[in-house]
């Protein structure tokens, strides 16, 4: 084991500092901002509203539709060309699937609820931050939900199971001189709070079954911390101000 001390000094299960708030976009029915370390997601919810094109309408229930977009200046390298690409389309799809199990649109047939997530700056874990922000924005919009969804990535960097990887940890072989041959895996997760069921599970890299299960266990604990931040932010706007 060579990656003993994390590059930013965190403990293995420690998340980066989080900051969340709701009602950040007045035009939207609901909105939220979620920051974890240097990754920042802003989510806005519009709807239930009429769906276009019409043929997408489902007469049994409303449709949840997520969008994910990195702002052109939000990547750590060159400017990103604006507009949709394969990556953003896939992430939007897995985001939708991560949130659908808790959202109840049965009372809104033929309508759509749109969730737009934008990232002004990123340092890995963007789809997780996007999902955490989106779940808050949906709750802020008053959309019926059976629970909240919280999301964070776990993974392995050079034999060490860690939570909430940074860009440098995802590329540890470049940044840690002792980890040149390191195997890395990055596992974004999302979980329903009460049932502990996974609604997002992806992985990049290589990992054994034993390590994967350990990582998922660590993930469950890490996700609790995200949940606490989401709940606090959702309630904060409604706490009686001291006069």
């Amino acid at each position, binding site marked *: 084991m060579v990656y003993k001390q994390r590059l930013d000094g965190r403990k293995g299960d420690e998340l980066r500092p989080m900051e969340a708030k709701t009602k950040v976009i007045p035009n939207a*029915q*609901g909105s939220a901002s979620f920051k974890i370390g240097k990754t920042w997601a802003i989510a806005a919810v519009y*709807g*239930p*509203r*009429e*769906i276009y094109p019409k043929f997408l309408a489902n*007469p049994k229930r*409303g449709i949840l539709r997520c969008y994910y977009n990195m702002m052109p200046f939000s990547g750590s390298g060159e400017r990103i060309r604006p507009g949709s690409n394969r990556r953003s389309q896939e992430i939007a799809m897995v985001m939708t699937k991560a949130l659908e199990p*808790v959202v*109840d649109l049965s*009372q*809104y*047939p*033929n*309508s*759509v609820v749109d969730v737009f997530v934008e990232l002004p700056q990123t340092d890995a874990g963007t789809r997780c931050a996007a999902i955490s922000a989106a779940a808050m924005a949906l*709750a*802020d*919009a*008053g*959309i*019926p*939900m*059976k*629970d*909240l969804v919280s999301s964070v990535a776990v993974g392995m960097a050079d034999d060490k199971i860690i939570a909430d990887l940074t860009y440098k940890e995802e590329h540890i072989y470049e940044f840690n001189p002792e980890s040149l041959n390191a195997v890395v895996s990055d596992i974004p997760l999302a979980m*329903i*709070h*009460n049932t502990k069921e996974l609604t997002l599970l992806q992985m990049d890299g290589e990992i054994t079954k034993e390590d994967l299960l350990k990582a998922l266990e660590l993930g469950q604990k890490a996700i609790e911390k995200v949940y606490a931040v*989401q*709940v606090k932010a*959702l*309630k904060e706007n*409604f*706490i*009686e*101000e001291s006069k």
Partner: protein
Amino acid sequence: MSEILIEERKIVVPGEVLAIGLDYVPGENTYREEDKIFSKVLGLAAVSGRVIKITPLAGPYMPKVGDKIIGRITDIAFSGWRVDTNTAYSAMLNVKDATTRFIKKEEDLSKILAIDDYIIVDIINVTSQRLIDVSMRELGLKKIQGGRIIEINSQKVPRVIGKKASMITLIKEKTGCEITVGQNGLIWILGSPEGEAAAERAIKMIEEKSHLSGLTEQVEAFLRGGR
């Protein structure tokens, strides 16, 4: 043994456990799974006897028969008008429901109600697929002329009206405005420009602080000094 985990007016998030045990009954915006009752929305808890319900702090308007709403004409058909209800669903206003007088077959409907006109209507029918019919035949239902229309979240409408219409009466008296509150969150204010602006700000203040106690006093203070 049943246990209640929340108190009156406590803020809860979706998925929060409200009570354990079968002695409590899930009311509006809650659901039961096994022996637990959970919240389904972000809102304020309300317990009455054994029933636990949640008053949402935001959320879409659900059209209901008997509701008075404010709508906007978006299209004119042979038999009537299409009305935007500020929801995902538009409504139909049939010619026969538009006025009490007889409308001749060849009459130009746009002379009666034109596109972009705002109207105060009652909902008279809602289907499971949310097809909505509205009517203007009752007293006080009419085309809106003059003044301004503002929008608030429909969940805040009861708060703006107040107990026995106390809040809205207060705003009307202090600003000298006529105010019509649509259940869909659209509100028509008619008065002097200054009065309208003050009423608008008071209503926005209620929308923002609807969860707080002592709101009537705050609104009163604002309307006394804030202009």
